[in-house]
């Protein structure tokens, strides 16, 4: 049996090295190599999905000793929670490459960085050894830093440094947590699976949870750790925004599901009200601030804060519905927000502005772009029948069902759904509808290539929205297993 996960994770690394070494005289080669590599990676993930056994727990496990002196292993596997995220990462990569097709400033470096990013993102979702996990986690920062700092907007240096330092600040605490688990007599290993059965004392768990919480919360980001996000999004190139919102944010919430819940179950329960509170604040606060934004990208960025709040609420609930909902939002948000950022990028390319007040009446001049933007907005505001709905609905229901969360939180979160409709419609109202503004005058509609990269996302959005099981059949058994293991503690 081939080491499928290793191939999936490290194929982009190979691609990155090859891309970096390509001759400068052929500036079109890097993007072609990158596209080929990411498509091959997607194909590998598709094989993985096809071979995946929905009720089989951790699968495709690869275990090898890495640093035997410290008990560090090369340990990778996927389950129903990480598989959708791995798929999402592999899916968004070729789209990001195509969205970057016009990058002509140091293309070899750019596409090498893009593929390096894929290594880190894929790796985080399959690593089950803490050291490996941490390595991938930090690996993600470097290419993203360069993408923002070198190919970003006018305030790129500020944004890139803020992004880098802020998330690094968080992950240092995570490292402390990892070491604490390793050094504790009941822990003593970096193996996440083994740690989940280790039965750590509750008081110790509380502190470790706090450390991990800081690391994950910054990444998610949860209010009040979110301010790096709008800056990073606004300055990042389109592909950077897509991957940042689509994958990087999920790393934080994935961390909660993969690390905090199974390894620190008691602490998760005692922290749940606090986590839920921050989640609810993020929902309402993100929505309210999004409403006041004048920049399209910032609006989408704050909407991400709001949506990730729903994920946090679902995780804090600790019920089957809540966790299913959390993973569903993670996936759906990746697809929908990816779509939104792609569209904002496409509109920006044509109008040279992202200021909402300066773009209006898109639907007349560019009906396809306008239709797609409206579609993505409705998906984002959680319209039933589209992908945004199942997750939000399930996390609300799950949170209501949970004994850990006060009903008041759920009511406030439900109002967040209303606010999401408000800021999204307000945006659609101004940008898509109405009379044409001067910036829209004479712009071309989406090209075939642009439509081609959006269509898969549209199809997934509808498919998942109508037939929830297309995603949840992978997630639900894994969530069940996770809850069973937590309950057994």
């Amino acid at each position, binding site marked *: 049996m081939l080491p499928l996960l290793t191939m999936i994770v490290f194929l982009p690394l190979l691609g990155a090295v090859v891309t970096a070494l390509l001759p400068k005289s052929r500036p079109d080669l890097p993007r072609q190599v990158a596209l080929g590599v990411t498509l091959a990676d997607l194909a590998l993930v598709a094989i993985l999905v096809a071979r995946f056994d929905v009720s089989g727990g951790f699968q495709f496990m690869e275990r090898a000793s890495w640093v035997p002196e410290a008990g560090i292993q090369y340990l990778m596997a996927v389950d129903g929670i990480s598989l959708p995220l791995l798929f999402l990462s592999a899916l968004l990569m070729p789209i990001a490459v195509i969205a970057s097709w016009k990058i002509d400033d140091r293309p070899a470096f750019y596409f090498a960085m893009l593929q390096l990013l894929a290594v880190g993102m894929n790796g985080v979702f399959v690593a089950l050894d803490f050291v490996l996990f941490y390595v991938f986690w930090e690996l993600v920062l470097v290419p993203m830093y360069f993408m923002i700092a070198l190919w970003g907007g006018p305030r790129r240096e500020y944004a890139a440094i*803020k992004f880098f*330092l*802020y998330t690094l600040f968080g992950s240092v605490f995570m490292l402390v947590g990892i070491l604490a688990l390793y050094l504790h007599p009941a822990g003593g290993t970096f193996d996440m699976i083994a740690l989940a059965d280790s039965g750590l004392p509750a008081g110790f768990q509380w502190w470790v949870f706090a450390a991990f919480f800081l690391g994950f919360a910054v990444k998610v980001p949860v*209010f*009040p750790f*979110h*301010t*790096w996000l709008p800056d990073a999004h606004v300055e990042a190139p389109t592909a950077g925004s897509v991957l940042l919102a689509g994958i990087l944010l999920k790393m934080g919430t994935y961390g909660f599901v993969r690390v905090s819940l199974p390894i620190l179950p008691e602490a998760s329960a005692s922290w749940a009200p606090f986590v839920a509170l921050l989640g609810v604040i993020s929902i309402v*606060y993100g929505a*309210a*601030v999004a*409403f*006041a*934004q004048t920049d399209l990208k910032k609006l989408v960025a704050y909407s991400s804060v709001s949506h990730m709040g729903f994920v946090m609420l679902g995780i804090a609930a600790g*019920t*089957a*519905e809540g966790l*299913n909902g959390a993973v569903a939002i993670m996936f759906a948000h990746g697809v929908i927000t990816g779509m939104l950022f792609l569209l904002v990028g496409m509109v920006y390319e044509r109008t040279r502005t992202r200021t909402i007040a300066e773009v209006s*009446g898109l*639907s*007349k001049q560019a*009906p396809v772009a306008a239709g797609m933007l409206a579609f993505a907005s*409705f998906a984002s505001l959680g*319209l*039933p*029948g589209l992908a945004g*709905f*199942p997750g939000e*609905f*399930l996390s*609300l*229901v799950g*949170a*209501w*069902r949970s004994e850990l969360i006060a009903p008041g939180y*759920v*009511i406030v979160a*439900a*109002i967040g*759904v*209303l606010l999401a*409709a*408000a800021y999204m*419609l*307000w945006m659609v*109202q101004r940008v898509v*509808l*109405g*009379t044409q503004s001067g910036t829209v005058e004479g712009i071309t509609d989406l090209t075939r290539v642009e439509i081609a990269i959006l269509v898969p996302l549209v199809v997934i959005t509808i498919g998942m929205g*109508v*037939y*929830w*099981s297309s995603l*949840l*059949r992978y997630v*639900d058994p894994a*969530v*069940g297993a996770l809850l069973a293991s937590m309950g057994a503690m």
Partner: protein
Amino acid sequence: MAYVALIPLLPALAFAVLAPLSRAVRNRMRWVGVAGVAGSLALSFAAFAAVWPGGDEGEATYRASASIASVGGVDLALGILLDPVSAVMLIVITVVAVCVQVYSLDYMRHEERIGWYYAVLSLFTAAMLALVLADNFLMLYMSWEVMGLCSYLLIGFWHEREEPRKASQKAFLTTRVGDVGFAIGLAVMYATTGSFAFDVVLGSAAGWAPGVATAVALLLLFGAMGKSAQVPLHVWLPDAMAGPTPASALIHAATMVAAGVYLVARALPIFEASGIALTVTMVIGATTALVGGLLALVQFDLKKVLAYSTISQLGYMFVAIGAGGAVAGMFHLVTHAFFKSLLFLGAGVIIHALHTQDMREMGGLGRRMPWTAATFGAGALALAGIAPFSGFWSKDEILYAVWKGHHYVVFALALAAAFVTAFYVARLWFRVFMGAPRTLAAFAGHADTDHGDEDHGGHDGGHDESAADRRGETRWPMVLLGVITAGIGFSAPFFSEFLGHAGHWPDPMIASVSMGVALAGLGAGWWVYGRRAGAVDTEAIKARFRPAYSALDAKIYFDAAYERLAIRPFIRVTESLAVFDRIVVDGVVNGAAVLWRTATDLSWGFDRRVIDGVVNGTARLSRSAGVALRRLQSGRVQTYQRYVLGALVLLMLLIVVKGA
């Protein structure tokens, strides 16, 4: 029986075919929409025949379900439940939908985006059909929201103009306020029973804790109030009239707005388990019935009169359900769907002919547009509650249910609403159809001919040159609806039996009271608006009823209150939150960065000045010593000689002194 699933799927398929096409192709393919709905209509009749002769509510003739997700061991499904209630609703929806779609073929034919119009209309029909066929609350909620989307898209169909754009947003958001309640209600329901299925939830409702039942019932009611435009969430419906008139007929009169009534009727066991919730439903319904009627009195926009009348009639349905006459409520839903869509289609013809929606500019249309006047008249009499038109029968049943439930105050309110209704119907009739034509367009019409339309996209679709009835696509749907309106009332007892209740003919006492009130309303309307042939002096009426009139004119301040108490504060809050975010939250981060920079500067300074200072100080000392001493070495021989001399003198002095 699997064809039942096709009933919502056919229009959905029509949407799926139309939506991805390019505008030009889509515009030519609008027959796809009509075909889809026509197919649904045929299948609905088949389903109705299968259900015949009816029976208990919820007693399924056919059920099927497909799981869309399994969460924590619970299957969430899209399921179909065909029972008498849903069969009736299927007929109502498909008949009105077919009429509206056929009518639109002519009415909307000059629209640049008619293909899109048909696509959305089909999607709407699919969602509404799915809603009434749903066998669980989740699917009901999902269809509910999709209808909301379609309503949004159709209200904002002419989005280049600001008014429809604003109205569509207002409609979506206002109904979504209700939906928040609905969603929470679903969460509570699920937490209580672990299911969304009707039979599980409704079957167990009687055993719930009263608090839970009340909470769920009121939350569902809140959702229904949003969708069915009940006070205080009614504000969106009059504005929604900015959409194309046929769409208003289907969505904002006949079907979607009735979904709230349908929801409450479906969830009746929960309301009954609560008890209080029924009373709340009735009170809200009665308030709405009266408020809607009163507001209709002061409107000059033809469609807005009808919109407020819709609000008022929906209030009647809530009253019925609250008073325990769910069947009466459902029957009123059915009759109202027919006569109100008829009225809207008639209004569409008038608006097209006269280029205006302002009733003050109409008049004398009765002679010019006999077909329209006849069908519209049937609808108006039904609305006013005059026997034998359908509205009379259903209103009578409602009043009967309220009377029998000993809710005398509500009964009085309902009668008052009936009077007001008849009054504004008379006002509308005399202003529009009677008297002298008040505009050239109203005057110049000649009957029953087809006219080419020139302009389009302007006010409400294309306009005809003159006041005249429209051609066949427009006329026959109206005639069909008119016939139904005139005749369906006689089915009242059978309708009850079909839904599994004892049927009865109108109670003579109640019937005569309601007829009397309705006739009194019409008479009063005639007294004010129809007695003299000339124009009615609106200003005189306004002056006479100053405080009441200005309150009504300001929509009883609901909109202003929302604007002042909710929307503007919300925008202010978001703006200040955005500032807060930038200055405080981000300020803390940047502050931390600045602090850190300062700290590093300080420690760098310490390092440079103190630690490195010691090292550098030694160097600098030797260096400055060198600089100082350098001056001694002038390079001039004689200087050195002087040093030597000086040193010699010093030595000698030293020897002299020491020696001494």
